[in-house]
């Protein structure tokens, strides 16, 4: 069946460094992916999305890369800040990965 998974459950980075969060998916027909950020005690919030006809999409301090050949996508956060500490999920439709917990060390 379809699944969306993440490579690492936790990630710690120094403030100011760049963060990279990875995600793998299994359904080659998937055509739309979304990254969400979930802060403690809150529901997930949309960060950025990408369609399968794109390889890269940039937002404010965030970039999503999509590699359809290996069914992999990544979220890059530039100049990571303490406010970026949260759990990050990649999602394809209503399939969510287990999340990566990002901790930013001041």
């Amino acid at each position, binding site marked *: 069946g379809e699944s969306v998974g993440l490579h690492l459950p936790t990630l710690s980075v120094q403030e100011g460094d760049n963060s990279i969060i990875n995600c793998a998916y299994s359904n080659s027909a998937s055509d739309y992916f979304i990254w969400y950020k979930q802060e403690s005690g809150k*529901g*997930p919030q*949309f960060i950025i*999305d990408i369609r399968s006809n794109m390889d890269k999409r940039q937002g404010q301090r965030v970039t999503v890369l999509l590699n359809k050949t290996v069914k992999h996508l990544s979220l890059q956060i530039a100049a990571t800040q303490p406010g970026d500490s949260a759990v990050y999920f990649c999602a394809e439709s209503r399939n969510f990965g287990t999340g990566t917990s990002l901790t930013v060390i001041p």
Partner: protein
Amino acid sequence: GAGVSQSPSNKVTEKGKDVELRCDPISGHTALYWYRQSLGQGLEFLIYFQGNSAPDKSGLPSDRFSAERTGGSVSTLTIQRTQQEDSAVYLCASSFDRYEQYFGPGTRLTVT
């Protein structure tokens, strides 16, 4: 504008009792989703409503779980004969078609 709201924010119930959780989606959103999230875990899909189509109930874990969406707007998730393993945060989200979902704050359910 107003986001997705859920009520109650917290619910403590005794094992065996029924509970109803409510979700008010963003006005105009055609799709509504329910998820369950256990502590430190990812989101488990439960049910999906899209317009007037039959709901996708494929994620409901047992027949004790049901949901309805009245008038294409408000949705209620009902759990009958609650069990301790039902304890979790129940998240509702709405979206326009299949695009990004807007989540409510969730209902934290504790079954004692």
